[in-house]
């Protein structure tokens, strides 16, 4: 699992880990059922306190991105474990409203938003960053 931290972006490290794991799941680099590194192992690799990894993994678990299996470790959740269709649609609609509101504030048109959205989708598919 390839994670790159930026220590002077001001973004909390645990949030950077969460975002990047989510991205790796979305891009398919981390497939459902695959095992995430151990807390100690990832802390050593990233040179952070193990508590930071615990915090990130806990939130990923709360967001149902990963599941924890007692004594075995942390695994990427199966997509159907995420949520029902109604909840899924509701969540996506909510995210879209927030995206559109922010875009409007920045003066971007819906067409421009869709364009960027398409570009980013392509990037995720090709595993690019």
């Amino acid at each position: 699992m390839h994670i790159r931290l930026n220590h002077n972006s001001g973004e909390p490290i645990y949030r950077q880990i969460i975002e990047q794991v989510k991205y790796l799941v979305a891009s398919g680099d981390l497939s459902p059922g695959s095992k995430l590194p151990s807390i100690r192992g990832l802390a050593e690799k990233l040179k952070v306190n193990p508590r930071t990894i615990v915090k990130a993994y806990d939130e990923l678990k709360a967001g149902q991105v990963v599941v924890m299996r007692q004594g075995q470790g942390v695994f990427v959740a199966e997509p159907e474990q995420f949520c029902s269709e109604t909840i899924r649609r509701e969540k996506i609609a909510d995210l879209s409203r927030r995206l559109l509101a922010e875009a409007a504030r920045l003066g971007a048109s819906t067409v421009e938003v869709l364009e960027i959205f398409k570009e980013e989708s392509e990037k995720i598919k090709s595993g690019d960053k």
Partner: protein
Amino acid sequence: METTVSIKNLCYSYDDKQVLNDVNLETVRGSVVAILGPNGAGKSTLFRLISGLLFPRSGELNLFGRDCRKLYKNRPFISGVCIDGAEPSPKEKVKTIVDLESGIIKDFDKSKFLAEMEKSDISAKQRYGELSKGQKRYLLSRLTLSGKRDLILLDEPGDGLDLKKRRELYDSIRDYANSHNATIIVATHIINDIERITDDVLILNKGKVSLHGELEDIREDYRIVRSYANSKIDTSQFEIIARSVTQDETTFLAKADYQTWQSLNLGMSIEIEPITLENLYLTITGETGEENE
């Protein structure tokens, strides 16, 4: 989490000059703690107090739950310390320094250690006084990080080292804290190095604690808010922790929760900056940072 160092209302003066004024600090196992502050802020005095080279005049200083006055009564605590005033004599040979330490440290591979020092042009035969400042720091820091300890104090461990060596040293500080569940307190001026690995931050200024907290929490809830041309700022949505005012700029260190910051828009001439250790330090100490550029 077990508390390692606990300091409450600690004051210290040399003659009539007060150098530490009502200092509070609590550290836990497995943490790296950065102590930052301008020269003369009281960092060295704090280190001397924690390491038993000085005794507190007023306030409490407990190590692993024990009062330092009792703990240090019969033996000065100098193991695990790499600070000014606790250095070997300049006449001492590197080999002797390492020999002495190897008597204290369990499972210490002396020849491996000396071989590693050779790579930094430090030979066993040299006298301590013949080493450069950087080599001295490197030798003592590495020696300190070789044994099994619960508490380590390092004063400017990267001083005089090149970037690559500093990186290695700071990585090994982080690894040590993780693998030994130890507390490592580091005083430094090189903010970028410590920002990568630290858990807690304590900023000392003129003997007082200006800020103390976990860096992750500070990144989450704190922002630097700058207003140019002294535009009016609506301060109702955040708490002001510190402020500095110049002729054409007002800077706040402000606190609110993460979600508030995500949605806050204060207007055209007001900038909200995320926290870096550098802008945090400059805002708190009121230094402009210009002399460093």
